């Protein structure tokens, strides 16, 4: 499998690896995928009082493209409002990383991870 330079860069030097405290009120956690399918992504966002994502962390079990896709989106969501972050499309991720057709599912998973993290945050705050 030939990877693009951007995938290799994110894979070799993944950005924002780690975890936030899941129970923190300002944190939204999205976990998508399944071990049996070969990818699991955990994406966490830390949201400021103004509704802007201040910081993000990820951990990913998966191929190089899955790791690169999640690393990339941690950079992209920072500084965005929740609805802006949730509108990131998998095609943008795939294009940025020049993912081959067999790896498009990695970008879809990254998009789903953002949506799941935003959803989790909203659920924590929705009833208030």
């Amino acid at each position, binding site marked *: *499998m030939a*990877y693009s330079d951007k995938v290799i860069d994110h*894979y070799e030097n*993944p950005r924002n*690896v780690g*975890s936030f405290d899941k129970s923190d009120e300002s944190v939204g956690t999205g*976990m*998508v*995928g*399944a*071990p*049996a*399918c*070969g*990818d*699991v*992504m*955990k994406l966490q966002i830390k949201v400021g009082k103004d509704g802007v994502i201040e910081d993000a962390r990820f*951990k*990913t*079990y*998966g*191929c*190089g493209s*899955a*790791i690169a896709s999640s690393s990339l989106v941690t950079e992209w969501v920072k500084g965005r409002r929740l609805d802006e972050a949730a509108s990131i499309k998998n095609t943008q991720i795939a294009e940025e990383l020049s993912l081959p057709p*067999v790896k498009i*599912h990695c970008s*879809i*998973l990254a998009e*789903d991870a953002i949506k799941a993290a935003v959803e989790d945050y909203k659920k924590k705050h929705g009833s208030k």
Partner: protein
Amino acid sequence: MKTGLNFPIYLDYSATTPVDPRVAQKMIPFLTESYGNAASRSHALGWKAEEAVEEAREHVAALVRCDARELVWTSGATESINLALKGAAEFYKTKGKHLVTVKTEHKATLDTMRELERRGFEVTTIDVDAEGIVDLSKLEAALRKDTIVVSVMLVNNEIGVVQDIPSIGELCRKRGILFHVDAAQATGKLDIDLGALKVDLMSLTAHKTYGPKGVGVLFVRRKPRVRLEPQMHGGGHERGFRSGTLATHQIVGMGEAYRLAKLEMAGERERIRGMRDRLLAGIRTMEEVFVNGSLERRVPHNLNVSFNYVEGESLIMAVKDIAVSSGSACTSASLEPSYVLRALGRSDELAHSSIRFTLGRFTTEEEIDYAVEHLKTKVAKLRDLSPLWEMYKEGIDLNTVQWAAH
């Protein structure tokens, strides 16, 4: 640390081996000087080629202990397997239309069997146990009155386990069923005695035993006589079993490679076993690693290990200083977990996270030590990245988690 080592360190000898320089030297004159056609009976160049081909045939026969006249040159094990299975099925189809094989066979066998099903034959594919071994009673139960061929590999290409070929041979011979053995991964690794084994057909290749790619052999027993429908028609070479001008240089290479294997196998095997055990000991200092397939009934040059909570493709990408396979080289273009490991009952996760290390003639202890350190560093890095590892460390049973399959 890297001084003296060539990168990547080659630990993929079951995919293919380098041609031994001694073999290459022997081959060269047959390209540029002794280039005659072994079928040319009218001049010295032809005679010389024929003589070289027959000498090589004797070397192959000596390694597997059969009569040289029982060997048919082919382009490799895949062709040998195709000729054996299709050739026997087509020849004996009036006797019966049923064949038996095993789930963990190489694709060359499984795919040929599928083709035979398409042609109207029936195929039973039996399971192996958790160690990768064929259960003889299961095999016996699969045999029918109309079974004409059983095909089982001697050494598995992914996990290196050794099947009980002598016993399976007895079962088949008693019933008058032809027995084909794919021995592509076995030559030079363990003793093969076709004089004692009740094997009717055996497929061999050169390039897993330090010979060139593109040449192999099918053993076709003369007593009791086995007949085949040829799959390649033409000039009637190889007693009509396989037409086509013989590739003299390739054949000479296979002969020399097998001659060296016979001479050096015993010592080489123990040296390689020592290094394989050193590799295993190094890997076992890590947590959550699992050996796939029986360690006892296995050729000494193979180690197949799953690194739990790390995904296989990213692991292969991370360990770029070593050349290894995830699953088997033939299937690593697809994203499916290894069907061989699935057949052992391994979970998809463990099947996804497997690496096959295969050592060989030119592997050194220094290379093994480097590989162990390299693996430790990279596995630790990927586990730091892995949400599954984090959950495992928190004490969460991953089997109780509801995953959103995609």
